[in-house]
């Protein structure tokens, strides 16, 4: 069983009103994202978003071994943010979360709002914030870009799990010690985040070598130097 599946909340963990609340949060955020990041069928954002969605989805199907005994799948918040930017990235991942719930029953239908908030929205937003903050480093060299990708992957995973803790604090169905819960959940995801960071960095590294034009973070500027590096 993959540890990161745990981030897909199932039905019944949150009460009905909290589920609806986060459904509203997700819809509002996505409305903003749709207005800011355009999916234009004629340019490359559409196929890139579709392919990244399919890729994350397929990685889950394959359930490939990360370490002996531990299998996992990329959850992709930082990768989406780096390749597509924060807005289209959020749109892309929300499709993944919805389709996973509908096709695999992965994550409860009533928990969709909360799951989208954590993985599609917090994950990409925080991943992008980290990458943006370190953009200078990312543009300096290939190694810098990889380091930034790693960091973004790590932090965004932890941020998504923190979202779960907040939701549980608002509408959790049992009174457990929040401190303890936060410690366990965030601790586990810090470890998972290392794997996420490594894979994010490897993927970005492979892409920048051949198709630097696909990377939103550097697309606008000094891509040539990066290729040369």
């Amino acid at each position, binding site marked *: 069983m993959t540890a990161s599946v745990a981030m897909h909340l199932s039905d019944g963990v949150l009460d009905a009103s909290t589920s609806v609340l986060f459904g509203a949060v997700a819809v509002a955020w*996505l409305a903003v994202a*749709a207005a800011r990041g355009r999916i234009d069928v004629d340019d490359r954002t559409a196929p890139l978003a579709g392919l990244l969605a399919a890729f994350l989805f397929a990685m889950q199907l394959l359930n490939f071994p990360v370490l002996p005994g531990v299998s996992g799948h990329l959850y992709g918040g930082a990768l989406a943010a780096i390749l597509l930017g924060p807005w289209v990235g959020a749109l892309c991942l929300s499709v993944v979360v919805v389709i996973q719930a509908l*096709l695999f029953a992965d994550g409860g239908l009533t928990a969709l709002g909360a799951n989208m908030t954590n993985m599609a929205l917090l994950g990409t937003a925080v991943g992008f914030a980290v990458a943006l903050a370190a953009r200078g480093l990312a543009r300096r060299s290939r190694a810098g870009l990889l380091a930034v990708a790693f960091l973004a992957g790590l932090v965004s995973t932890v941020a998504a799990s923190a979202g779960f803790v907040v939701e549980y604090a608002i509408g959790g169905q049992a009174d457990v010690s929040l401190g303890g819960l936060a410690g366990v959940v965030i601790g586990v995801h810090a470890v998972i985040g290392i794997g996420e960071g490594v894979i994010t960095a490897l*993927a970005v590294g492979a*892409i920048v070598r051949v198709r630097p034009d696909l990377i939103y973070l550097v697309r606008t500027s000094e891509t040539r130097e990066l290729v040369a590096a």
Partner: protein
Amino acid sequence: MSGGVLYRPGDSPVHRIPPQVKLLAAFAAVLGVVATPREAFWAFGIDLFVVLAVWSVAGVPVGWFARRAVIEAPFVLLAVVLPFVSGGPRVDVLGVAVSQDGLLAGWNILAKGTLGVLIALTLAATTQPRDLVLGLQRLRAPAWFVTIATLMLRYVDVIAGELRRTRIARISRGDDPRFLWQAGAVARGAGTLFLRSYERGERVHRAMLARGWAGHMPAGPAAPVGALRWVAGGSPALVIATAWAVAAWPV
């Protein structure tokens, strides 16, 4: 996606319900389950009965669902742990003192989570992936959603195809296929696979554009769904909602 991962081809009345009806019914049913007070044990019994009835009409064996339901395992763990770590008054279960509130909370997650997974699996088992997207489109999902979801389902095939091609190419030239599945190779291969699939996906996307695709399939005049079919398709959700209403009614 041509096959569909959990889809079980069939021609039962459940398969034939229009996808938009099925989607709404599934959401309503899960919402009904989640809103039901956790002490109303009988209501969950009715819910389970409804789900079983739908399966028998759909002709999908119970064992199939049981195997797929393990996706929920991490939360079962949470449900089992809760009675031990929660606060509040304690009760004795088999000689062990556990939190009464925790016990109920654990039961709550177990019952609602399981029912939720079973309902979602019912949807997945009886609906083609592309029909799901069509259903969402008819329910007025935003255009960006339909576009990304449509491309995504196409591209799952592209990725699977590229994976298969790469594997054949490798073993034909003396690679040991087992090595492909070792940790390092997979991690490194993921980037290459991504690019390879992206570039083929890009060409497929061009082919779709070249033949006039504009982000979604012309949905055509969707055969209007008569009131009767809405009622038939929605009846399981209706029963679950009734159970909820009775259970939640302040007496």
